[in-house]
């Protein structure tokens, strides 16, 4: 009996997930293949649930198979009942979509194999639902049967030395493989499924960069590594030439976020100051350059004889003003700690945006600043996405250089000491005021730099571009990537900024997936995908030592 109960519970959970996806409108957007997808999912769920049970239960074949059947049956019946209710309502002319926006007749049709007219007409949905239930039950059964495979044994075999060697070799080769795939798309006549070759190419680029980061980490320092680095750098430098406009545009945004991530990493990762208002400095940099350069800005219009600066003159000004803003905002928060610091910086971020929005006589208000000139170097207009990407890459390298040098200096040590224990750090003779302000100011200077680049890339900037979600994105990307780790910033930016751009056409699903990804990552790998080695140890020790006091 216990057995059935357990299976029933798993079944309900599976049903919950299926129902959620159902209400999210997956049948509507997928059409007929939705049944295949759902069945696969049920199979996977059944497999996952049943594999996790203790060994003696898992080994019991009959028990396992029965549970698998129950899981499939419960979710199948559950979904059928709901679908039947929806179908009846729809037949009665009640628009279910007024409550659940995605539950339209087509949605019901996709689940039952009928057309919209048939659902609304007098064709019964019951045969379709029977088929659905049977399919799910079968899927649950197969999933449970799969648990009997000797997975552990296979894995053990793979984990042996030769397996590891294969992996590290694969890591070495992977970036080149993806680069190859990307280039293959450029070859005349070659097409890879679907109409979105552009997005597929983009995906290969991201895979290339990601794989390159992993490969670099896996390879021991030495001649091998130097060769790898040189090869990868050359490929990276060539990349913008092969990519098309949209790909370069997306990479450009990713680049700008990488620069910002490196800056915020100083504040949050090294100095341990939780800053939720980082966008303020980004906005300051962007507006500083925009107001000084756009022929339609308040400054240029009201200063007689002033025609606006070019990008290379505006950039240092933006950086300095950004740093100054960081210094200024740093002063009042010197005494605050933890969550109070977080909310005050968040407040500053909002204040910055709202001031830009409301001081419309000077900033252009909601109308923004338009016609911001492109960077010009030796008479060349560098405003196109490819050149912007090159500039972003250059900026990334420069700030990485600066950050690494700072991190390894006594200032970096002082930051990390402060993050570890503020009081003791001060008792060691560290001037907390100075290093906190330095952290804020250097982070802000980098954001200012990114802001100027963003402004010139966008041509027009608006206050809405500097909302809270920018801060949240940057914070999330350094945490997903691995806080305190510079490769992590790159990877985080690709995962959180780049990938969603590919999926932009499919609107809101990407943000739901983004939210789910953040939660999942925090549970699975709180230290990030590519953690800095030191940080990784912190988080795991915290994790396994629940016995230490939680102060």
């Amino acid at each position, binding site marked *: 009996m216990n057995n059935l109960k357990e299976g029933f519970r798993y079944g309900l959970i599976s049903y919950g*997930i299926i129902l959620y*996806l159902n209400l999210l409108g*997956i049948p509507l957007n*997928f*059409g007929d293949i939705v049944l295949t*997808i759902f069945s696969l999912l049920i199979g*996977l*769920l059944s497999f*996952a649930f049943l594999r*996790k049970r203790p060994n003696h239960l898992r080994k019991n074949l009959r028990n396992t198979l029965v549970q698998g059947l129950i899981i499939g049956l419960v979710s199948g019946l559950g979904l059928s009942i709901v679908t039947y209710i929806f179908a009846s309502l729809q037949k009665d002319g009640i628009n279910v*979509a007024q409550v659940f926006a995605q539950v339209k007749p087509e949605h019901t049709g996709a689940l039952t194999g009928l057309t919209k007219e048939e659902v609304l007409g007098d064709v019964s949905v019951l045969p379709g639902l029977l088929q659905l239930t049977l399919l799910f039950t079968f899927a649950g059964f197969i999933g449970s049967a799969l648990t009997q495979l000797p997975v552990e044994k296979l894995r053990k075999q793979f984990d042996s030395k030769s397996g590891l060697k294969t992996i590290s070799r694969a890591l070495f080769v992977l970036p080149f493989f993806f680069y190859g795939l990307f280039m293959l798309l450029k070859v*005349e*006549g*070659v*097409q*890879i499924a*679907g109409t*979105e070759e*552009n997005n*597929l190419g983009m*995906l290969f680029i991201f895979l290339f960069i990601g794989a390159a980061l992993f490969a670099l980490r896996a390879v021991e320092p030495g001649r091998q590594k130097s060769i790898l680095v040189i090869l990868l750098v050359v490929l990276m430098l060539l990349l913008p030439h092969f990519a*098309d*406009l*949209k*790909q*370069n*545009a*997306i990479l450009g*945004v990713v680049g700008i976020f990488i620069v910002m991530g490196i800056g915020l990493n100083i504040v949050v990762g090294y100095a341990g100051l939780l800053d939720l208002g980082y966008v303020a400095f980004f906005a300051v940099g962007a507006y500083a350059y925009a107001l000084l350069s756009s022929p339609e800005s308040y400054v240029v219009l009201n200063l007689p004889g002033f025609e606006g600066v070019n990008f290379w003159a505006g950039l240092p000004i933006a950086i300095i003003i950004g740093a100054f803003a960081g210094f200024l905002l740093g002063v009042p928060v010197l005494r605050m700690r933890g969550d109070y610091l977080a909310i005050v910086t968040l407040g500053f971020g909002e204040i910055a945006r709202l001031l830009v929005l*409301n001081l*419309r006589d000077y900033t252009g*208000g*909601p*109308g*923004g600043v*338009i016609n911001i000139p492109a960077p010009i170097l030796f008479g060349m207009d560098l405003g*196109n996405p490819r050149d912007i990407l090159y500039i972003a890459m250059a900026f990334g390298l420069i700030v990485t250089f600066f950050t690494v040098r700072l991190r390894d200096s006594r200032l970096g040590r002082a930051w990390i000491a402060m993050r570890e224990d503020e009081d003791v750090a001060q008792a060691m003779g560290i001037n907390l005021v100075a290093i906190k302000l330095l952290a804020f100011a250097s982070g802000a200077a980098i954001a200012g730099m990114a802001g100027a680049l963003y402004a010139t*890339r*966008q*041509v*027009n900037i*608006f206050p*809405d*571009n500097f909302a809270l979600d920018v801060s949240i994105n940057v914070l999330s990307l350094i945490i997903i990537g691995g806080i305190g780790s510079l490769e992590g910033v790159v990877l985080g930016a690709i995962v959180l900024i780049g990938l969603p*751009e590919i*999926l*932009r*056409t*499919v*609107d809101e*699903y*990407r943000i*739901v*997936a983004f939210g*789910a*990804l953040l*939660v*999942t990552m925090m*549970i*699975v790998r709180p230290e990030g995908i590519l953690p800095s080695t030191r940080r990784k140890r912190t988080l795991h020790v915290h994790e396994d030592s629940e016995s230490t006091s939680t102060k």
Partner: protein
Amino acid sequence: MSKRLIVLLATLFVASLLLAACGGGATEAVVEKPAETMDPEMVMPEEAMGDVVVIAPGDPVRIGVSVALTGPIPEFGLDIQQSYELAIVDLNAAGGVLGHDYELDIQDGACDGDAATIVANGFAADLTIVAVAGGTCTGETLGLKPILQEARIPFVSASATNPKITNADCDICNRVALSDKLQADVDADYIYNTLGLTQAAVMHDNSDYGLGLAELFESAFKALGGTVLGELNGIQVGDTDFRAALTLVGTDSPEFIFFGGYVTEGGLIAAQMKEVGMEDVVFFSDDGVYGQPFIDAAGAAAENAYASFVAGDEIAEVNAEFDAKYEAAYGTTPDAQGPFHAQAYDSVNMIAAAIASVAVEDADGNLVIDREALIKAIRTTSGLQGLTGVLTCNDIGDCGAGGIQIFQVQGGAFIQVSGFGLD
């Protein structure tokens, strides 16, 4: 449940969502396309690279769409998108252009310059896009503008009304919507001369559209001799309690409130006015507020509120036909969804008419469209019959037909109270 199990579930979940995100499965398998259906860009005649778009026989003519499916006014965006789709269905039913169908490449411009930049770069990179319909909002359209101009792709916006959109320097910028300047003038004139109100309070939603219109209205109303009390007072999109702001505005005892902004906030302001002692104050707003969603949002308080909107001179019949088709296809009336459907339908038709006028068939049976000729053809559109009236572009790309008319909510529906169509 163990932690790892949760983890696994969560992973599955993400995976399935991502799968969902991939839509129809753009990345299902790697296959090599047969040579005869090669990508159009590959068969482009070498001597004409960049200047013309060559479309192989059987391939569609592709029009990019930037539309606000997310952001502050997704319901308007959806309305516009559905109208674009209807226009394409009608055009293809009428035979397309020289045997080629039209096809839309719909992207979410999110009512935001940021998203539009990426969308526009995508269009610029895709050499098969001949023209763009959109964007929905002013900021979005300004984001499209520099990139499309560089790429020589003309656009026609259905709903971006800010005066900044079109100017003499931009030959690819066109719109069917009427400029806010015109709207502000008509509104001010109607209020001052027809309603006889002179004491105004002006509010806005601090968006480029709402604030821009509020400022234009303020100057137009003052020019007529009216008084604008106090400063322009702004509200924030996303807030829902505007009583404090309205109380402040109410201290000056205005005869009416002019609100520049969108429908949700407009509806809430109209409703909350009654709760702060402004029962007798007239609510007057703009084309961002016109439509059924306003009446839903304001409820009973919507009665007697005014909104201005575009109305053409000979629209009734064609519009009824369009409304019927729309309802059949999407299950709601266009007016319940948003206001700009007629403009959206017209803008695609305008693009199609221009394409039809410049497209030629070459010796190999390919369709050839010259980009510069298309830009010129759109700009010189003249006398095109549309849902909104007769479309004729002026030299800076304002092509809107009809005129701004005033509507009032009477008995739970917007009733036209000025201009053509009234006898």
